[in-house]
């Protein structure tokens, strides 16, 4: 398993380089320009000057190499300099967002806490709701609980977050007045009161996202459990006189987790990728909102960097899923 992991990690480097090039070309080829949000009153000559100042008129390969250098050398060394007070890359240009002229990594740093607390919590809540529902629905297939669970999951999935989010705002903020609609990112938790405030402002986005996540995961859990409940080894286990609890939670569950692990592993990078619509709706300044804003403004350095980090996470978590497969089912061998 260790050699497999190491080999995969080494292989990931060329893969990621290819992915980064493809993303760069794609983002560059996409129509649009960083000037699309500039008012029409700004004349073409000024626009041209602004594009030159951004360096956006350079050939695409030069910009790509520059980005590679900045991403793999300047940025890590800046961090290093910051930690140890050295000055290896002082004065060298970092990756700057075209839209805000701020270093991309500063923006990402500002946004990671919100992304992890809000989107991460929502994902966790989703999983915690989905697993029991999926397990129990399968165990009591076609019971009232199963039917209700199916309905919940289907509504959760067929209703897009732009709809459910707005609905929650109208019910819980406008009518009931329980929760705020805009996330206050300047809030720092210092005492019980501010913690309560944080919980309140997290409630709506977490609910919206949790519902959508729970829906999908619970369906996979249920179907996989159903497959395994009919297996011979379950009958054997029951015949041995094991309690239902042991049979279901130990034998069946473990064997049913493979597709669920895949789905969760696919979903974790998307926590970082953020929930674009939900973040936008509630004003959570997460990574997703940054990505969509950058795409709209054609902020290539920002889009490129975020998409690349996203790619790294995808490769990483798919590797973790592969390792987990081996742990869940020792028969799976990769060598």
């Amino acid at each position: 398993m260790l050699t497999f992991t190491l080999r995969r990690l080494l292989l990931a480097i060329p893969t990621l380089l290819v992915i980064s090039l493809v993303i760069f070309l794609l983002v560059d080829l996409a129509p649009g320009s960083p000037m699309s949000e500039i008012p029409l009153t700004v004349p073409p000559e000024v626009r041209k000057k602004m594009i030159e100042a951004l360096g956006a008129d350079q050939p695409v390969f030069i910009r790509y190499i520059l980005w590679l250098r900045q991403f793999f050398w300047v940025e890590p060394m800046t961090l290093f300099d910051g930690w140890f007070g050295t000055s290896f890359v002082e004065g060298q240009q970092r990756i700057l967002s075209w839209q805000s002229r701020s270093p991309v990594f500063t923006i990402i740093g500002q946004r990671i806490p919100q992304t992890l607390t809000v989107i991460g919590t929502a994902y966790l809540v989703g999983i915690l709701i989905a697993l029991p529902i999926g397990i129990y629905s399968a165990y009591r297939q076609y019971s009232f609980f199963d039917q209700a669970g199916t309905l919940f999951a289907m509504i959760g999935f067929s209703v897009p977050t732009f709809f459910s989010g707005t609905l929650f705002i109208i019910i819980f903020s406008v009518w009931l007045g329980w929760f705020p609609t805009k996330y206050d990112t300047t809030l720092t938790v210092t005492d019980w009161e501010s913690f309560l405030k944080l919980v309140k402002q997290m409630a709506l986005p977490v609910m919206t996202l949790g519902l959508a996540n729970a829906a999908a995961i619970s369906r996979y859990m249920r179907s996989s459990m159903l497959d395994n409940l009919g297996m011979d080894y379950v009958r054997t286990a029951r015949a041995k006189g094991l309690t239902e609890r042991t049979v279901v939670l130990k034998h069946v569950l473990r064997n049913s987790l493979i597709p669920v692990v895949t789905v969760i592993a696919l979903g974790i990078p998307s926590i970082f990728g953020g929930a674009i619509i939900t973040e936008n709706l509630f004003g959570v300044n997460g990574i997703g909102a940054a990505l969509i804003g950058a795409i709209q403004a054609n902020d290539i350095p920002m889009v490129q960097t975020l998409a690349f980090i996203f790619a790294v996470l995808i490769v990483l978590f798919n590797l973790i899923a592969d390792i987990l497969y081996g742990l869940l089912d020792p028969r799976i061998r990769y060598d």
Partner: protein
Amino acid sequence: MKLKSALLGAVAALAFAPAALAERGTDGEVKLTFPQAVSIMNPYLSGGTKDIIAASMVLEPLARMDENGVLVTRLAAEIPTLENGGVSADLTSITWKLLPGLLWSDGTPVTADDAVFTWQYCTHPEGGCSQATKYEGIASVEAVDAGTIKVTFTGPKPNPYTAFVSHLAPILQRAQFEACIGAAAPTCTDANNMPIGTGPFMVTGFTVNDTVSMEVNPNYRDPAKPAFATAVIKGGGDAEGSARAVMETGEFDYAWNTQIPPDSQAAMTAAGKGQFVVAFGTLVERIETNTTDPSADLPEGERSTAKHPHPIFSDIKVRTALSMAIDRSILVEVGYGAGGKPTCNVIPGPEGWASDNTACLTQDMDGAKALMEEAGWTDSDGDGIRDKDGKKLSIVYQTTVNPIRQDFQALIKDWWTELGVEVELKAIDPGVFFGGDAGSPDTFQKFYADIEMYANNSESPDPESYLGQYQCKNAPSPETQWQGENINRFCSAAYDALYAELGTTTDIAKRQEIAMKLNDMVTKDSITVIPLVHRGTLSAHSNTLGGVIINAWDSELWNVADWYRVK
């Protein structure tokens, strides 16, 4: 300025007596929300309105426009004119005097040298300054003494109030931006995000594309203002959400740019927590007709260029009929409600500059049909679509993706179908449409369609530079990499000549007369542009927020120092 604020104070005192007695920083926090978040606080590096409006709370110019489009002082002691000798008789220079005793928020004095620096900053060839037009035609800016700034132009300038005037061209502090000139401009993140200014507030915290936190500027020149101790601008979401946060949940005091459907406006107002306010500038939603042939059968490079005139629109009768078939009041009712007015002009305001051209306001379907017949377009095969010489009257109508514009497309398509015109609709992502990417076929400059709809405006009440776009030389073409503002490829020697005359005319009444003539030449005389709706900027403010005076000619937050909490 003094008189102005005294008057405002008097008005406020009459309406809300206790508030007028407010002292600096006694009213707590004022919370603003923008549908688009603030990216940067330096207006010279951003063209986005959201950034410039936010920056206007901190950075100030020498003079600005009030809500009537009249120039009033800000950092200058008085407005220089020909009469008071501030503007030289030959119109080649203007001399500004700073208010005495002005301090930056860090406590250092504001001097003429800062203005000189600002000019150098924005005109540096590698800086990519987005307000470069404000500093165009300037030979030099000198500090005559610490409080006097002399701007010398390269030639006579009838409108000398460009540099250091309006929220688009405020003064930066030399000490802070000294090292940020030219190519280094974008690297000064701290300065760009937290500029030191002279305005009522100063930035204390900035998260990119999210929140700006501000507190009162201790060195603000009026010791009694602002009434609020802190201010927050939270960005992101959509117009709907921003409006809701002010009008229904009451979380925020002010929301900028809350363009929502008229029905929702009414419902939100009914909640009783706030009100919508609207500022009418010169923004006009219009249909542009293509005077050149956009046919896909033409070779690339000749499509939509002056080489091939438009096969249908070359006849003014067709264009006139299309305009006559539209009922503009229904468009306003459906799309904008209080936020719009029907118009026939490209320049709908301010008073004095707008032509009295109102003929298009009443729909005349029968007249439109008659005109079509007259032009030779008849429905000879009875399929409901007019044709002429075996060619169907069929047009492509493009605009950006936007719910109101799609409603307009649907309505106008209905009217034109009734007229016997076949219409194919197209909606394009705004980032692509306005992006100007020469590689994309869908930009508004390329205009690979027969007509297109969008909104445009003049950034100053004086429309000279705005009217310049219809000159022949500004037509986008492959030779100019499809850049240029003359979207219609309108070309008239008479127009160009009259426009040149505008550039040398100084008398206001005469200028207004010429501007109206130019406006009529592209609208009612040639129907090159079909104006639809004069749009306002709709904003919302809470009923507990007093002192808001909406202004279409400057930043909406122009008088934020006068805002106070209604108790």
